[in-house]
């Protein structure tokens, strides 16, 4: 073993083919899109974690004599806002909140949506009919409008936002997983598992779930982008985390009235949101390409 059988003259350690960077990435399951997304996301996450080390300023401490400093001012690389608060530290600290929004907003929808999708697809019959009709009804609502309507009953704030996302966000996961389950349920290994006497819950969890969860997992990243965008929109509208908590959407809203005087107050948080969103989209696209 280990000898080069095709050409014994070549020493077995000599590489037959030099792998390009792209091919090496593919060997470990990465592609350039996925890698780019992961790198950007890691940087964002690290910066959010290390926020206190990366800035000496308190993100909510007001210093009115330092208000409206443009970016690249001494001591304030990204300038200050109308209350003299350092933009760089506000953007860093709000990364923590927006990461949390992105994560918490997809956990429940993912788990519940996968559960509904597998149940509908595997059990079929009335369960499927009822669940699919519920989906039809939920899909008639624009996502944002339904979220906003739920929040109008529960009142504004982060908690209501998570509840609203939880109640609305599971739909795509359920649809995707149901479709996958419909093709998987008739495969041989599922029949085999049933034949040897595995119970329905066991087949669903041990045999169907691992084989249908992939596309739902890929969608998690799209779902996170959506959650962060809608979250930012809600706080732009004043329904999300309340001031002075730094959050990108709320910062954009605060900058809106100083658009001429201090355009950076609006542009920079939006840019942060954009970078974060692009990272997640790249990861989603990269994962989808892998399949």
């Amino acid at each position, binding site marked *: 073993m280990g000898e080069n059988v095709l050409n014994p003259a070549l020493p077995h350690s000599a590489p037959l083919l030099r792998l390009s960077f792209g091919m090496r990435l593919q060997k470990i399951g990465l592609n350039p899109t996925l890698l780019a997304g992961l790198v950007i996301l890691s940087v964002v996450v690290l910066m959010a974690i290390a926020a206190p080390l990366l800035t000496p300023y308190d993100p909510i401490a007001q210093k009115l004599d330092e208000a409206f400093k443009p970016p690249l001012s001494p001591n304030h690389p990204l300038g200050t806002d109308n209350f003299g608060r350092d933009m760089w530290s506000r953007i860093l600290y709000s990364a923590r909140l927006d990461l949390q929004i992105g994560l918490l907003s997809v956990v429940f929808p993912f788990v519940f949506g996968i559960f509904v999708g597998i149940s509908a697809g595997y059990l079929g019959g009335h369960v499927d009919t009822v669940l699919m*009709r*519920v989906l*039809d*009804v*939920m*899909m*008639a*609502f*624009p*996502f*944002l*409008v*339904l979220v*906003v*309507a*739920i*929040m*109008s*009953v*529960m*009142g*504004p704030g982060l908690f209501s936002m998570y*509840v609203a996302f939880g109640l609305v966000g599971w739909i795509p996961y359920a649809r995707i997983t149901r479709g996958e389950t419909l093709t998987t349920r008739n495969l041989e290994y599922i029949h085999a598992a049933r034949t040897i006497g595995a119970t329905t819950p066991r087949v669903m969890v041990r045999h169907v779930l691992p084989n249908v969860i992939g596309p739902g997992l890929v969608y998690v990243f799209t779902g996170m*982008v959506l959650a962060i*965008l809608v979250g*930012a*929109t809600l706080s*732009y*509208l*004043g*329904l999300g985390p309340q001031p002075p908590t730094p959050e990108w*959407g709320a910062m*954009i809203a605060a900058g*809106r009235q100083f*658009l*001429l005087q201090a*355009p950076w107050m*609006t*542009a920079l948080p*939006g840019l942060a*949101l*954009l970078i974060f*969103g*692009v990272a997640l*989209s790249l990861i989603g696209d990269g994962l989808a390409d892998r399949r």
Partner: protein
Amino acid sequence: MGRGAYIRRRLFLTVFVLFGVTILIFGMVHFLPGDPAATLLGDRATTQNIAELREQLGLNKPLPEQYWMFVSGLVRGQMGTSMQFHQPVRDMVVSRLPISIGLALYAILLAAFLTFTFGLLAAVNKDTWIDQLVRVSFLFVLTMPNFWLGILLILVLSLGLHWFPVAGFGTTFTDHIWYLFLPALTIALALSAVLIRNLRSSVISTTRSDYVRTARAKGLLERIVLMRHILRNAVLSTVTIFGLQFGFLIGGALVVEIVFAIPGLGQLLFTSITSRDYPVVQAITVITALMVILVNLIVDLSYSFLDPRVTYG
């Protein structure tokens, strides 16, 4: 199944969905945590105040009776009275609805223009720098929140170059077209970011089919092959995606109305939320759901006109 039978089945389904929509909106007020009367009165309300308001709003009646009042009101076009403005919700909504619908239609027109221009441009120049530029630019647009994109357009095109008004709606029809251009463009950019991706890949895969090769072999002009043979077939899946994206378009439009201070449903919706005016919120939620249902019905029914080969099974 013939077209007639399909349309009947589809309409039956629509009626069912409408029923579900009313149940859901009704249920929201009654089953979510939070008493609408208490929320409405704020923190300083006494238990007696709350009890009185509950009685006044009919919240103490049995649920089926309340649901019946809600639905029969909707059918008669009576959606209650605004708690904030003490006006019939119907009048408030009816005066603003045309503005929002106009904005949405304007955005759809612009989105169609952007999608066909850039989708085809990218597909025809597949894998060249033009393709890459279109794809990367619209990936960025896709990830931008609508409201931020709107503000950036204001910053550059209104405040910077003075090409368009910063906000408002105007008084004459020409004014409206002029004032609504930037808001419509904001919505259209976001919508077309999704559609361009789809049209591009759909055109590329259609180009590989045999009938396109035959058309080219016949010596047809490339322009005719592209418009009559490729695009007509490729556009079908893009229309489906449009139907699915319509909800996002409506949501985005409501927010963009706020950014550009347009007196449409969006402004009414968001002021009603802040003041906890839930009859108004309910009415707008019903209307947007109706719009989504209607557009998806039109999309489903349009297939057989766009592509005569489509049969309904």
